[in-house]
Structure formats: structure tokens, C-alpha cells
């Protein structure tokens, strides 16, 4: 790696002024994307600002009335081990256990997965399905951004210079709410999603009253397919309703062909995985 300086602020305020004064700096969470990119030259910097010494970024807080707040730098291994998270957001614990392998999960964070803005980021479609909100701090104060608006291009997010992500908030799941993330990878683990699908559904009195569907690896950014979720609302959870939502998700996908898969195959997988994920969520 090329030389750089290192700072590890202890408070949000200290971090805010450091980030604001050094717009060329790179902020560091678990480093499983950033250090790889600094090593291979895809990124360069003269200052790395480590956010892991700031309490707000390293804590998980659960409020049974409001929801779950996950600090942007909390490693996946800690998410997998958190009792309330496992109980109330099992799909989130599952996706945290899917990123990389055991040692990667010891470092990799949801905040890093989101900020890195890879189209293939596994946690992002699920966070969109869970209607998560990203809390951003910057020189102008705090703002909350729906996760579906956070990534703007491959490797680019909407953070302005001086801003960073503080935490991600997940509303409390209502009765009858279930979520599911499914991905296709040639290997069982340590692989990048050819396609990923995150869904959530809510069923009340035999009718679907809420549904959200988002896709990974089929567009320049993680893709929220609002119309596919909306098509389910008011319907009974039948195979026909599921098939219709799956075909809408498939139609919204704009995949490319690359070394992992041709575009046609990705489009096909979108339909299959959306159907399976919805079927699983609705069967819970």
C-alpha cells in the first residue's frame, strides 16, 4: 500500500471535523473493501480515518417499540450473535452470516457494505426490503436517507464531502411481517452474488398488506422494484400473485453480461429467486 496517515477519532464531533477538513480522506470501518482497494490501487489516499473507536458506530441498540439501530461499523459477527436481532430480524442475522466467511465477518460491517455501493452487496437488497434508513452526519447536521436512495452508481454513494454514515435503523417488524434474502452463487460461500433478491411481506387476515422487493447484481446499483412489491398488496398470497410480482421484478432488472454470468441468465434468476424468496417469506 502507498503511504498514508492514520487517525482514529473517539467522538462523532471529532470525526466530523476531521472528515470535513480532509475531503480526500478515506473513512475506515472493517476495511474488507477499503484495504483491498488501497492495496490494489483502485483507491488512493493520504489519510485513513478509522471510525471504529466511536461508540455510536460500534453499538447495536434495540427498542421493542421503535426498532433496531445498528452502528455503521458493527461487524457482521456481532450481528449474528445478537439475541434481539436474531429474534426480531432473523433475515438480517442470516445475511450477516452470508458475507464472506468467518474471518471476514469478524470485520465486515453493514455500513461498509452499503457505503462501498457495489451492485452485488448482499445486505443492501435485504435492508431495502426491511425499509431501513441510513443516518448520515455531516457539516449541515444529521439527515436520514432511505437505503434504496443511498447508492447512486457502481462504487458511488450519495454522501457529500464531509459526510459519513453513523448508523442504520430498522423499524420494528409488525405482526405478520417476514423477510428473506436469497442469492445465487456457484459456490456455497465466499462468492459474489450472480443475483440476489431481498423481499419482505406482511399478511393480515389472509391478505398481503405490505411488500417490498429489491435486487442485487442486476443493475448499476442495488435496485428497489417498488411496482413488484405493490402488485402484491390487497392480494391473497397465492402462487399466481407471487408469479406476477416475480415477473415484474424480472422486467425491472437491467443486468449486464460478465465473467460471472450472461445477462439472460441473470434475468432468468431474478424471476426464480424472487418467486422463491416471496414463497419463503409468505410461508413463515
Amino acid at each position, binding site marked *: 500500500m502507498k503511504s498514508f496517515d492514520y487517525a482514529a477519532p473517539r467522538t462523532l464531533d471529532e470525526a466530523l471535523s476531521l472528515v470535513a477538513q480532509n475531503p480526500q480522506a478515506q473513512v475506515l470501518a472493517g476495511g474488507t473493501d477499503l*484495504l483491498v482497494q488501497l492495496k490494489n490501487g483502485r483507491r488512493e489516499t493520504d489519510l485513513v480515518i478509522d471510525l471504529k473507536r466511536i461508540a455510536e458506530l460500534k453499538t447495536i441498540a434495540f427498542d421493542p417499540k421503535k426498532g433496531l439501530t445498528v452502528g455503521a461499523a458493527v461487524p457482521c459477527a456481532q450481528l449474528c450473535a445478537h439475541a434481539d436481532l436474531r429474534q426480531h430480524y432473523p433475515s438480517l442475522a442470516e445475511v450477516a452470516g452470508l458475507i464472506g466467511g468467518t474471518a471476514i465477518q469478524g470485520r465486515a460491517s453493514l455500513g461498509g457494505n452499503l457505503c462501498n455501493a457495489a451492485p452485488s452487496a448482499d445486505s443492501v437488497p435485504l435492508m431495502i426490503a426491511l425499509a431501513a434508513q441510513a443516518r448520515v452526519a455531516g457539516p449541515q447536521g444529521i439527515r436520514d436517507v432511505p437505503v434504496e436512495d443511498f447508492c447512486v452508481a457502481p462504487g458511488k454513494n450519495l454522501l457529500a464531502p464531509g459526510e459519513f454514515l453513523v448508523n442504520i435503523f430498522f423499524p420494528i417488524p409488525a405482526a405478520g411481517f417476514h423477510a428473506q434474502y436469497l442469492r445465487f452463487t456457484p459456490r456455497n460461500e465466499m462468492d459474489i452474488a450472480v443475483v440476489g433478491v431481498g423481499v419482505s411481506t406482511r399478511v393480515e387476515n389472509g391478505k398481503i398488506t405490505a411488500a417490498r422487493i429489491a435486487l442485487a447484481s442486476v443493475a448499476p446499483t442495488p435496485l428497489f422494484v417498488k411496482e413488484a412489491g405493490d402488485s402484491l398488496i390487497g392480494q391473497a398470497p397465492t402462487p399466481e400473485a407471487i408469479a406476477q410480482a416475480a415477473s415484474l421484478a424480472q422486467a425491472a432488472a437491467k443486468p449486464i453480461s460478465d465473467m460471472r454470468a450472461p445477462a439472460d441468465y441473470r434475468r432468468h434468476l431474478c424471476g426464480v429467486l424472487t418467486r422463491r424468496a416471496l414463497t419463503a417469506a409468505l410461508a413463515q
Partner: protein
Amino acid sequence: MKKVHVQLTLNGEPAEFLAEPRQTLLECLRDNLNLTGTKEGCGDGNCGSCSVLLDGQLVTSCLVLGVETDGLRVDTVEGIAKGSTLHPIQKAFIDNAALQCGICTPGFLMATKSLLEHNPNPTEPEIRLWLANNLCRCTGYDKIVRAVMIAAAEMQESAQ
């Protein structure tokens, strides 16, 4: 760039080193502290041969900066034997031919130690999933998985 003074607990003992911020923990262990047990395979988080425990958590030391470990606890393969008495995991690897060239072995030992701390009696699929972050080009994995099962059984027996 200015070197940074890092103080940590290394294999249970206080330790310190001077590091350039761009040096990974792997480089600091090997080049600054002369602890060459931890190996570099890929340098990008895929092979697990550089695995160590950081505050008890399994991590790939090639994707940690040395300066990040200030005030933290680092455990490496050098710390797992008690003097000249090998750790049961080390013994099981040797007795069951779970290594050939040995480059991957320190990483597998640390990953196994971490596994058995979380789950003292893992099933074969659980072992294979936990060790998926560790690659071995020689053994074909079966002997490693068997050695882990044998180590787990022995550690449970001697704990009783």
C-alpha cells in the same frame, strides 16, 4: 509518513511496535515483531492463511492495519502451545496428517481455535462452513475436517 507507536497485548503479554500506518497487521507481526508463524497467501482476505484473533474475534490480518490494534488483544499461532506442549488442535493436525506444505496451517489452527470456542462440539457441515474462509491447496480438506473433529472430542473429554 510518521511512524506510530502501537501498544497491545500479544499472546497474553504486553507488547509494542512502531508501524507505518500503511503496514498491515500481518506485516507488523512478521516484519516488525519477527513472529513469522502467521502466513501470507493472497493478501486480500480470501485464503485465511493470515488468520489471527483480534480481541478474541477471528480476522484476516492482511486486512487489518497494524495501527488499528493499539490497546487491543492479538493472538497468533505462536501463542497456542503451552511451552513445548502442543495445543490439542496442533496435535490432532499432526497426528492425522492434516497438513502437507503447512502454509495454510497457522490460519486453520486459529480458525479452529475460534470455532471450538464458539461451538465445542461442531458437526461436519458446521466445521466446513466455519473453515470456508481458509483455503488449502494440498490436503483436500478431509483430513483437516477429521482432525478438527478429533481435537474437539479430545478437548471435551479432557474438560470433563
